[in-house]
């Protein structure tokens, strides 16, 4: 009996943590999304029993997500920003992770510290620092005009989509590099040597060995950065402030910010979570398959 419960018991703190800080709060959001609003205080009144749920808010939000609805354009824009940021993160992050994992030698530790270093400063502070750097007379414009890359200063903070994407990349890229590095660092050199011995070119060895074996790292990193990016609202607020560059997180923020319809904010949150669950499920399935295949390698 004792042995039977010993090892599962180690999972207890984690399970308890998840129940208290994820499952229960998330169910509260669901109960608010399917709840009502106090007519006097305009506070959300959650409905805990699914059989009594008020589906009106969810139907309204679904309607507004459909083409032509209020949320349709902002949802598409969010998808575009996240996809562009993810692609840029991969384009920049993969070579960095590859270099650190395979060629950094003694500098590996130092480079890892440098990658993690920005995370020691709060995200908000880093973004605010960029506001100064990207100002019309900031260092970025001064450098680009000095080097004649730009003929005149660019209005980076004037509500530019490129600035929002750049800020998302800057803010989240360390979270992509770390799992990528871990995946690349785990690849046995002997696999690559075997590929080369069998006549594969460096590119072919990368394409047929390194890339497939780092797939879990790519997906892990991608999941790690896309989930918070989808809910991000402060990055576009800080570096843009224009409705034209707002993301779906800004709508959640708006409705949760003391207005008369917090239920709409909760309903958007639930729908976003459902959408992200699909991405997460694909990741879990890939990990599961990879772990099954690993002993066969």
């Amino acid at each position: 009996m004792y042995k039977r419960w010993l090892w599962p018991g180690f999972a207890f703190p984690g399970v308890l943590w998840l129940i208290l800080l994820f499952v229960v709060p998330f169910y509260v959001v669901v109960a608010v999304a399917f709840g009502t609003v106090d007519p006097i205080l305009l506070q959300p009144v959650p409905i805990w029993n699914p059989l009594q749920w008020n589906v009106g808010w969810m139907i309204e939000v679904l309607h507004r997500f459909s083409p032509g609805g209020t949320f349709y354009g902002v949802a598409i824009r969010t998808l575009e920003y996240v996809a562009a940021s993810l692609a840029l993160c991969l384009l920049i992050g993969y070579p960095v992770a590859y270099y650190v994992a395979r060629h950094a030698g003694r500098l590996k530790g130092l480079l890892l510290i440098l990658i993690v270093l920005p995370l020691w400063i709060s995200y908000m502070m880093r973004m605010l620092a960029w506001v100064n750097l990207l100002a019309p007379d900031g260092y970025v414009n001064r450098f680009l005009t000095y080097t004649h890359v730009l003929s005149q200063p660019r209005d980076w903070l004037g509500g530019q989509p490129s600035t929002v994407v750049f800020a998302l990349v800057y803010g989240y890229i360390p979270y992509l590099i770390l799992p990528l590095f871990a995946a690349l660092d785990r690849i046995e050199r002997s696999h690559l040597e075997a590929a080369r011995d069998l006549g594969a070119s460096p590119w072919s060895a990368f394409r047929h060995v390194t890339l497939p074996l780092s797939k879990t790292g790519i997906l892990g990193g991608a999941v790690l950065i896309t989930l918070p990016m989808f809910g991000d609202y402060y990055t576009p607020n800080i570096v843009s402030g224009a409705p034209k560059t707002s993301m779906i997180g800004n709508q959640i923020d708006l409705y949760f910010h003391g207005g008369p319809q917090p239920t709409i904010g909760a309903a958007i949150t639930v729908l976003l979570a459902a959408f992200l669950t699909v991405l997460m499920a694909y990741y879990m399935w890939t990990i599961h398959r990879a772990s099954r295949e690993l002993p066969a390698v």
Partner: protein
Amino acid sequence: MTMHPRERHNQLSRRDFLVRAAGAAAALSGGGAMLAGCSSSTTAPASTTKKGELLGPGGLPLARPDKRVTLPLWEDPIASGLQPETGGTFTVFNYPAYLYKKLLKDFGKKYKVDVQYTSFDNISSGVQRLASGAVTPDVMEMTPDMLDLAVAGKLIKPLNLDYIPNLKKNVWPELVSPFYDVGSHYTVPYTCYATGIAWRTDKVKQDIAGMTQPWDIFWESQAYKGKVALLSEPRETIAMALLRKGHLNINTEDPKLINQAVADLKELNAICNIKVDDVQYQTIPEGTSWLHQAWSGDMIAAYIYYLPKGTPATALGYWKAEKGKVPIQNDCFSICKTTTKPVLSHLFLNFLLDNGVSYSNFVDFNGYQPPLNEIDPNTLVAKGVVPHNLANSVLTNADFGADSLQEMTLTQRGQQLWENGYSDFQAGTK
């Protein structure tokens, strides 16, 4: 590949995954059928009087400048002649950096209490936090448009004006017994301001004040793309678009008018890549914004605190419409139901209305003008507190009255309309 028997049941092929996903989808759609049996409501019913007049939260009448409302007392005020409580903590609940901390220290020293300042992001979330019990302040900032809600929810306590003699002695007559709280049953005024346009005179070439409809400047601001912003406030932005088209009812609940105003606001995305924020007191003097919808107090604060050295005061411009066409507001202070020091709370309200205290809060810290008899534009310009070109950002008693415009409480349905309209604008689509 060998596998432990207990692991086998976890195998999941791509086919299994797809099959299960399809199953889940089917289950969810079945769930949809189940949910079809649930209730479905989003739009609040609008309550009305027998005469068809709209009612606010708790069935209270909706106050308007030309419709004075006496709020019911949900309990008796405290008795007169009581001694103030001493010791412990006295909590003030307010916007961040909206009250001079030195004055709070002075108050604490005088009455031997430790004064604590707790802040909220906006008044709606502040009232909601008070209602939920997340905070237990003694006094809090209040706005007239939230007053019905706070009274109907019994969140603030009735006042005994015997403890607040400065109200009648120092405050503008229009706000001693204001239309939204006749008899000052629950509030005393704190600051006042108008909503207008702030701009950099060295960047914006048009004569905004001389335009037939100055609000049009936002729709003629192609040259200032990326440097133009509106207040990040649903009521202020939509009200501005209504006023531009000559609709003076800025408390309308007519969906057609609100939708048209939102459609007009959305044009600004293409015209000037409009931005929304509430930091105009900083961005205008620093020159990162050139044209901004702004409160009058912002420009006074901009001049006193944020104007960089070497930039003349004449670089700041401010316009507000004439009385009856300009949205004006006043903030208030109330005593919270959670107070443990009701007598001291009354004395704090009286303290805020003291001429010296109020003036110091205005010119040494806040920039937002208190509605006091002692303060008038000429005196402030003569003292150098406000530069001559910003004298129009100072309000007077004459700006208030039955023919003034104030954003006031809406019905729940009205609030939904305005919030959804602002959401549409905020989405940044065509």
